[in-house]
């Protein structure tokens, strides 16, 4: 029991530290790719930047705009934090490490991902500001649409592993990672994950060039910090899910399983950052058309073909 609590605290701590470190890593990586330095003042290589940011953000005045809906305004940032952290509970980090083993782990992940939509929508609504509202409306349609493809893109994986249990799914990839037979599923999941964690190029709820800051225009201080943290945890969680579902989880030669898991995850996190540095943002209706006209048929075809091949093989 004590050991389990220690394990939970360890994973929780690593995740929080990871998200905090990611704020620095992302800015340094962006700096690297954009021919500039990024934060390099606080501590060696600027590694203490997250601490400085944290001190600043925690000591800011906790202010709620007088025109906002107070209750929802406060609840909204909490939802995203809770929902994204909860997802991590079902992810198996190594053969022995993992908070909980649910035999509906995958469904749990999808449910939590859906819940995080509420955070963005409620923030947009409760702020009672036009820019935030537009961001909230965009978030609602974008995230709800992309949830559909996210779930559909996983149908093939579920069929191949024969289980919703994430640990079983990882173990099923012992010989061959699912990214090979389920390549289209992987692509669709990646795009959907990008949309779910609303990162550039799919950051339409935020899109600073159009809506100043979208749904969190009115937020400041630690409440804003929670959205920020939620976004980074979202990036980590999405990367972890990609690794678990398609990249063979902890599998890999020579190195310990946990290290493999961490390396693969770091690769996808860096890929997320690189995408942000490289790709422009599509328009809202173009994004919707891309989802419904391209991703939906693609994922459906993928599910049908996978099912057909499996049936023929059995």
């Amino acid at each position, binding site marked *: 029991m004590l050991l389990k609590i220690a394990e939970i605290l360890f994973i929780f701590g690593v995740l929080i530290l990871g998200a905090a470190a990611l704020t620095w890593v992302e800015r340094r990586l*962006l700096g690297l*790719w*954009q*021919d*500039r330095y990024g934060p390099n003042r606080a501590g060696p290589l600027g590694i203490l930047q997250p601490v400085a940011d944290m001190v600043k953000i925690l000591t800011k005045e906790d202010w709620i705009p007088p025109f906002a809906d107070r209750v929802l305004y406060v609840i909204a940032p909490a939802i995203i934090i809770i929902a994204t952290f909860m997802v991590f509970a079902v992810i198996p980090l190594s053969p022995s490490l993992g908070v909980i083993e649910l035999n509906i782990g995958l469904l749990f992940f999808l449910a939590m991902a859906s819940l995080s939509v509420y955070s963005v929508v409620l923030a947009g609504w409760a702020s009672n500001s*036009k*820019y935030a509202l*537009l961001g909230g409306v965009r978030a609602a349609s974008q995230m709800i649409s992309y949830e559909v493809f996210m779930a559909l893109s996983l149908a093939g994986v579920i069929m191949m592993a024969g289980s919703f249990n994430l640990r079983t799914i990882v173990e099923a990839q012992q010989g061959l990672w699912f990214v090979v037979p389920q390549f289209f599923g992987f692509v669709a999941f990646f795009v959907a994950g990008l949309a779910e964690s609303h990162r*550039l*190029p799919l950051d339409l709820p935020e*899109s*600073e*060039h*159009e*809506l*100043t800051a979208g749904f969190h225009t009115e937020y400041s201080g630690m409440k804003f910090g929670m959205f920020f943290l939620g976004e980074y945890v979202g990036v980590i969680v999405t990367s972890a899910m990609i690794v678990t579902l398609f990249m063979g989880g902890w599998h890999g030669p020579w190195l310990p399983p946990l290290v493999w898991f961490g390396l693969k995850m770091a690769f996808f996190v860096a890929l997320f950052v690189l995408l*942000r*540095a*490289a*790709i*422009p*943002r*599509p*328009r*809202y*209706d*173009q994004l919707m058309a891309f989802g419904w006209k391209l991703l939906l048929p693609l994922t459906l075809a993928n599910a049908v073909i996978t099912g057909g091949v499996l049936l023929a093989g059995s």
Partner: protein
Amino acid sequence: MSEALAATQALEQAPGAPDFRSQPTADAVPTLWVAADQLRAMLRFLKHEIDRPYGMLYDLTAIDERLRQHRADQPASECTLVYQLFSFERDDMIRVKVALAGDWRAPTITDLWPNANWYEREVFDLFGVDFEGHPHLTRIIMSPTWQGHPLRKEHPARATEMGPYELPDEKLQEEQDALRFRPEDWGMERKRDGAELMFLNLGPNHPSAHGVFRVVLQLDGEEIVDAVPDIGYHHRGAEKMAERQTWHSFIPYTDRIDYLGGVMNNFPYVMAAEQLAGIQVPDRVQVTRIMLSELFRISSHLLFLGTFLQDVGQMSPVFYMFTDRQKIYDIIEGVCGFRMHPAWFRIGGLAQDLPQGWEKAVKQFLNWMPARLREYEKMGMKNALVKKRTRDIGAYTYEEAIDWGVTGPGLRAAGLEWDLRKQRPYSGYEQFDFDVPTGKRGDSYDRAWVRFEEMRQSLRIIEQCMKNMPAGEYKARHKLTTPPVKDHTMHDIETLIHHFLSVSWGPVMPVGETSAMVEATKGLNSYYMISDGGNMSYRTRIRTPSFPHLQMIPLLCRGMMIPDLIAILGSIDFVMADVDR
């Protein structure tokens, strides 16, 4: 002068032309005086009936004539309206003047040219001329609560002439009320088809408004029903300042009109002053001016491209482009000693000769830049998402563009191959070999593409400047060159006195009117100046390209979505200082 004479003679004989009286000017632009009741007939004649018509209302402004002493050759007038028309068939300009007296009233011409709307509002705002029949004659540059009309001669020019500023509670309340948004004041309705519309205030500080610019949007969801641009937040009264600065000391103010254009702003100003003074500048001056202006053109276009791509969500290019701009600024700094606002051109020459080793710096840049441009082409201009975001967004035909006063890359993007540097070369551009890139569709993408290609052409021009830089002096030997050539001052007292006066009081320009135009970074920029025989200008009119470009925004974005508006704003490439002056 003979050309202008021929043009006016042809007009006199043209069938159906209203009566006019012509006036000689230093810039040889045909200048016609017509009676106020003949104005509309004359303009309509010039736009529609004459052979090879004057299609564009290039500029509309006014002159407060009440304190002017030397105007014996002109009809009596208290306030003169000046309409400048441009013909792309003739590559030529014509000026129509109307004398106003008494209550300063004139008929509107908004039905002839849509872009007359803002110009007439500006004249109303700054001079108090009442345009009868104007659809929405309100202040445009000054705040709605402003008292008086700033460009009238009786209006004070300095804060010290205006008495201390006070803001009692009632006045505060009044100012606050003036800020309140009422859609009706902007010509917008609150409802459409029974459904309430949303109004979104974009700016004056919005990350993509490119300066202190405000657009009030009427939205149906995210679709733009109507947009009303609001300008004036960056107004500094440059034209008023010109009436209080010597001909020489106004040069630094011109730098700040299009603050990305640097010396490009000095260019039309000093050319106009040289026309008044009758100075011919040496070849070396001409080529140096061209070289520096083209460097600034690249610098400005780079910033445009970076922010344009950023507006459609591509974050990185702007950082790469600042690296290149830094290299340009290194050259500019080496030559001028300043970076953004060098104020380096002088009436009759340059502030200094080019420094030793300038060729090396320019050569390095010429070697550096082409590879970078290839990279930007691959990364930005050929990016599928960028194309998807900007193709067919905010498109106009070149007829529309001419009607709305669009010049420069915006006009070329619509397919008209017209570049002032080719069609009416100034400062020796005719000796250079370069192409004029054009677009086809006139959409946001084409506007970016034309600017992108122009950078390559500017590199060619700079290379030719570097290879063929003429030897010679960097100042004209003329008594009005400021500061004058100094080598005789220590030998003869007469020259010393002239030098002293011209440096301490400023040069005294001969009486006259003139204008000079350049192909600036954003379009045609010109200075129209009147000397009343003093050491300061009697009236300086700065015609900037961005002003009419912004006026076109509602036309471009109706029916589009907010992200499209951002792409359009980015593609217009405006600078608010260039709009408001």
